[in-house]
């Protein structure tokens, strides 16, 4: 939207959790932080990763929703479930290959990152990408991201399922997609 795209680069993340704290300050879902943040293995390393929803082109969460409650807009943003329709069945929570949707039990609604829709639909940047001090989460033009050594990729393989997303993952140059299943790498004659 407005010529800007979302890029995620976990190698730049410093684990400050500014994204997590800023996420709950946006207007669309005040009080709830939608970022998925992990210490990869604190005993071994200070490596951390923060992820937002990947806003898949063919969102698995929307596909499996029995109540037709999850919609993907024309600008590509996949929204939290529509409150009048959501039945809190958690199908989407289980189906998403990235583990993004969160079931908010007190509200009986699935909520997830919607790219701070109140901000991005008006041409502003999402909270997380605005505050991230290392720009591991970045919402910039493709020209800006081209200055980095890593290159954006948005194709993932989970076994037989191919997922392409609106949000890009920064990968080493030359690597066009990310495969999760070891079966994709082995040779079976």
């Amino acid at each position: 939207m407005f010529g800007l795209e979302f890029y995620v680069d976990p190698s730049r993340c410093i684990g400050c959790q500014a994204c997590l704290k800023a996420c709950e300050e946006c207007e669309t879902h005040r009080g709830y932080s939608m970022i998925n943040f992990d210490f990869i293995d604190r005993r071994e390393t200070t490596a951390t990763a923060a992820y937002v929803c990947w806003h898949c082109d063919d969102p698995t969460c929307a596909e499996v929703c029995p109540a037709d409650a999850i919609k993907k807009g024309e600008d590509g943003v996949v929204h939290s479930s529509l409150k009048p329709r959501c039945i809190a069945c958690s199908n989407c929570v289980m189906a998403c290959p990235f583990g993004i949707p969160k079931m908010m039990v007190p509200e009986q609604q699935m909520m997830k990152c919607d790219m701070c829709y109140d901000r991005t639909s008006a041409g502003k940047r999402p909270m997380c990408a605005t505050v991230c001090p290392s720009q591991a989460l970045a919402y910039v033009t493709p020209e800006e991201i081209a200055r980095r050594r890593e290159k954006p990729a948005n194709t993932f393989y989970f076994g037989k399922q191919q997922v392409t997303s609106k949000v890009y993952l920064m990968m080493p140059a030359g690597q066009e997609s990310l495969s999760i299943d070891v079966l994709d790498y082995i040779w079976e004659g």
Partner: protein
Amino acid sequence: MKLFRPSGTDPLWRDEFSIFKAEERYVNRRQLTKFLTLTSLAMFTGNIWIAIRAWFHKDPVYPIRAVAGLEEIPVGGVKIFDYPAANHPCILVRTGPDSYAAYSQICTHLSCAVFYSRDQNRLECPCHEGYFSVHDGSVIQGPPPRPLARVVLERRGGELVATGMLQG
């Protein structure tokens, strides 16, 4: 945004319940209310228009036309003529030596042409057995809902002249 499923191969339910907002055929309350309101408004306006038109409707002016000579047709005979204009056939009947009657020939039921039955001395419509009185054009039997329009005749000189029409 549908990148991976060529259109046309979708089952109907996918089409009806699309997960892509752009392809939704979902009508929301606002859209429905808008539709109802606008349609009602259109109909209301239409009615007002019709009412205005009727209010300003002028009485038609009828021409004076010679229909036939007094002795042109025998007693019990008929003459078909057009009055007031070329597309409106009428029927003149000599009911007696000195009495004549003329009516619109268009049956008021479904616009068939009525004819004069000498035996029964009445105007009959062949389509649905509708009978009209030859004295005043009223409906004797059958489906016609209204009497035949009557042509006003005058004797001028030795002729019968049509001067107007009376609707039934």
